[in-house]
């Protein structure tokens, strides 16, 4: 009987210890997501994917794998933009806000990225 009581005590101790580790709003319980890197390929006169959702602080890399030069520019006012990207060039941007963008060289090429709320 004493043996059983001792086992019970050990089990209860373990349960209390686990509960205490998982309770409260301490850092161990928060979902911390490291910044991610997403890639958008420019190919066949399109941004692929044309619509992407990221977290604020993530990085997007655009790689020009097309046969002609392109750029990546905020639509419609080019408030931010890349240099002209020759084939195989890339452009990196840290994302803070949602945006629609286009290729100002070929204006019907349009796409967007959204930041999660």
């Amino acid at each position, binding site marked *: 009987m004493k043996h059983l009581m001792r086992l019970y005590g050990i089990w209860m101790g373990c349960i209390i210890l686990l509960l205490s580790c998982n309770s409260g709003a301490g850092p161990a319980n928060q979902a911390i997501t490291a910044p991610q890197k997403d890639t958008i390929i420019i190919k*066949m*006169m*399109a941004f692929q994917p044309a619509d992407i959702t990221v977290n604020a602080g993530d990085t997007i890399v655009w790689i020009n794998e*097309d*046969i*002609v*030069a392109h750029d990546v520019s905020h639509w419609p006012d080019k408030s931010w933009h890349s240099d002209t990207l020759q*084939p195989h060039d890339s452009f990196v941007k840290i994302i803070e806000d949602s945006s629609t963008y286009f290729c100002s*060289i*070929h*204006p*019907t*090429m349009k796409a967007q990225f959204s930041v999660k709320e």
Partner: protein
Amino acid sequence: MLTNKHLGNRLVVAVALIFCSPIMEVQAQDKLTDPEIASVAVTANQIDVNYGKIAIKKSKNADIRKFAETMINDHESIIKQAAALATKLNVTPQSNAVTKSLLDGEVTATKILNAKKGKAFDKAYADNEAAYHEAVVGAVKTKLIPETQNAELKSLLESVVPLLDHHLQMAKDLAAKF
């Protein structure tokens, strides 16, 4: 009533369609070889580069100049890649009836474009670009790609189609402004 201006504008479009039509005529006749297709591809691109250079020289309109710069850069890029592929494949582009018709048409259209100035030139250039790209897109899709034997050359032509479609839309949008 047709004014000289309207007639002139229609003429440029007509010329563009005329000099592109041999592509379609040959379609029903001779089948092109890969060296001949390489020649047609390079020539068709070079002609649009040449039209672009005329526009840069003659036009002061910002939209026309920007479009022309894009045509020059894009088509020169394609020529470079076609030339590099021909070298890699040890293929020498071979002149043929389609190439000759394209070049004959270029001479005629260039004369018409050079005879115009100001807004009349801008409209003629934009109309010609729309008609030219429409004909070239059709020829690439229905003749050049189906008749190409080499897989890499076929792949290059297929990769050019979205660009040509885009140029066609850009040219139509541009023409609608005049």
